[in-house]
């Protein structure tokens, strides 16, 4: 996405920028009453050579009103720019809450969620939408729309209320339609498309935003293998162009194959954070999901041969284990 890098340069977050404002140091200066002295933060969390972080969270906590315990509890994470990170966890682990905090649609109860050094909920919404594209989990248009009309809405953050689409906008739309393979559907009403086609149109809309970061919330729920793989196959290409990708998913195996890094949430806390090989261990997955599993290397062929794949067990193997200890749920502290 040549234009994406062109677009980034004036924004000041091109990788070449020496003092990228996304690094923790300026972030700390931008928030003077930081509890941790800035000098100690960078060496502790980022080795100096790695890419600047797109998102940084520190002690991020959210308690919904009336809830007995926080939905998200003291989460400190970093999401490096230009990488694909998968956020995993059982239902109710806090994935969606973390997502809302990272997108700034919900202010944290405690701690902070910084995007490019600035608290996400304090970003002007339009500016944030120019930087971050979101593919939502669930969305239904109230009125009939064509695919092209839907994808064109990805340009709205760049256009504001009055400006008309220019040639650059139309190019971005065509490119987005093309990369999601929906060009041939462009003039079809959304209502006549299959679930997979509609989801590809939504991804295309996020790409038309030409964002620096892309967030996908369970993008392949209810899609068949082909459409699911087609969407995951888009992710490495996006990262290669310098985009930061966050994907929330229940598919541990696809996450292991397509994300360089996995964050496993459990009861609102980070149970594990690291490469697929470090996160998808039998003990960890069994304790978090409460179900016996086997871990096997991906048989290949392909670039991801050998990546750990999780196979939930069934039958007697499973019955005996569950009877044994109901899996040590909640012991993760």
């Amino acid at each position, binding site marked *: 996405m040549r234009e994406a890098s062109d677009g980034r340069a004036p924004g000041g977050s091109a990788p070449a920028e020496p003092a990228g404002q996304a690094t923790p140091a300026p972030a700390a200066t931008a928030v003077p009453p930081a509890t941790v002295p800035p000098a100690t933060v960078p060496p502790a969390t980022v080795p100096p050579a790695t890419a600047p972080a797109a998102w940084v969270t520190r002690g991020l906590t959210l308690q919904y009103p009336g809830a007995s315990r926080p939905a998200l509890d003291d989460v400190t994470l970093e999401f490096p720019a230009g990488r694909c990170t998968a956020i995993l966890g059982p239902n109710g682990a806090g994935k969606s809450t973390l997502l809302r905090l990272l*997108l700034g*649609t919900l202010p944290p109860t405690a701690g902070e969620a910084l995007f490019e050094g600035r608290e996400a909920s304090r970003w002007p*919404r*339009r*500016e*944030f*939408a*120019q930087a*971050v*594209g*979101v593919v*939502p989990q669930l*969305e*239904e*248009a*109230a*009125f*009939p*729309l*064509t695919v*092209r*009309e*839907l994808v*064109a*809405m*990805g340009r*709205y*953050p760049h*256009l*504001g*209320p*009055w400006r008309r*689409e220019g040639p650059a906008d*139309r190019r971005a739309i065509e490119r987005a339609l093309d990369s999601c393979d929906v060009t041939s559907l462009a*003039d079809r*009403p959304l*209502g*006549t498309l299959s679930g997979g086609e509609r989801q590809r149109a939504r991804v295309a809309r996020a790409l038309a*935003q030409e964002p620096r970061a892309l967030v996908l919330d369970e993008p392949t729920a209810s899609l068949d293998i082909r459409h699911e793989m087609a969407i995951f196959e888009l992710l490495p290409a996006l990262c290669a162009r310098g985009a930061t990708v966050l994907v929330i998913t229940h598919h541990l195996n696809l996450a292991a194959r397509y994300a360089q890094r996995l964050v496993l949430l459990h009861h609102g806390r980070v149970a594990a954070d690291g490469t697929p090989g470090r996160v998808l261990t039998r003990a960890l997955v069994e304790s978090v999901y409460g179900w016996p599993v086997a871990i096997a290397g991906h048989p290949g062929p392909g670039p991801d041969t050998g990546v750990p794949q999780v196979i939930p067990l069934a039958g007697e193997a499973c019955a005996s284990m569950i009877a044994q200890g109901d899996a040590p749920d909640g012991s993760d502290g």
Partner: protein
Amino acid sequence: MFPAGSQSSLNPVVTAGRLTLRFVLLAALLLVSILLAVRLGAVSLSLREIVDGVTGRGEPTTVAIVRQLRLPRALQAALVGAALSLSGATFQALVRNPLAEPYILGVSSGAAVGAVAAIVLGLGLGGMWGVPLAAFAGALLAITLVFRIAYGVGAALDTHVLLLAGVVVGAFFNAAILLLLTLSDVESFRSAMFWMMGSNAGASWRSVLLLAAYVVPASLALVALARALDLLALGEQTAAHLGTQVERTKLIAYGLASVLAAVSVAASGVIGFVGLIVPHVVRMIWGSDHRTSLPSTALLGATFLVLTDLLARLVTRPTELPIGVVTAFLGVPFFIWLLRKRGHARG
């Protein structure tokens, strides 16, 4: 399902050309309908007489019919039609439901309570402004109540709660109207009923100017929110992700749509279904891009109400039908057709 987007050609020049053609066509349609409304009636006028009447050179009766009666009445109908249609289109985008209508928020019932109270209690006798002012106050009271209830339930404005609040407040106000009517004498009962069914018979240049002072700026402000409405129709989450300040935008849009409905009710009484039919027809023909559909809705809504008002005057000449009856006779079958079609589409 619809030929929506057939106009979203790749070529911007073609699109712009088609848009211009569409707006020229709609404006011409409105002009013709206003001309018809001025021409037809108990006394039919020729084009020449109309021109003479407007310029004031014709015979005094003709001048009076054109200047004092038919022209202000047609213009009031046009303004009210545009306002109700825009209000409906906005509510439909905000509530994300094509069956929504200005009256869904209890605006009509509030206005009706105000007007009926003024008529029955004799407050309107002080002058021509008593009833419309009371109607406007009632509409604002209804909107305030509905929003306070809706906001009292949760931190953010929940559309479903808002709709329920509208229904509940509307039911309460309707009960209040029945109470007032049982207390009223025959004369005020008749005039209250007539007002509740809608009429443009009371139009004057003052009412036209007053309406325009609200309708024109509010309509422009809504067109400025067109892209935000496009996004809100996709859902509030998506709208937020695409750069909309959801709560603020919703509040402004609800406010503008409510004011449009309130001034319409204050001027013409309760006229239902305009806000349902017109936006839907526009979306069926031209798609739902609000930057183009809102102006189209305003123009078509104006034309629709000018023609319905003409119909209301002509059908049972020399007496006059309440315009609300005409729009209801057209609107109810349309509503049922829409409901059935949506039911089939779902499955």
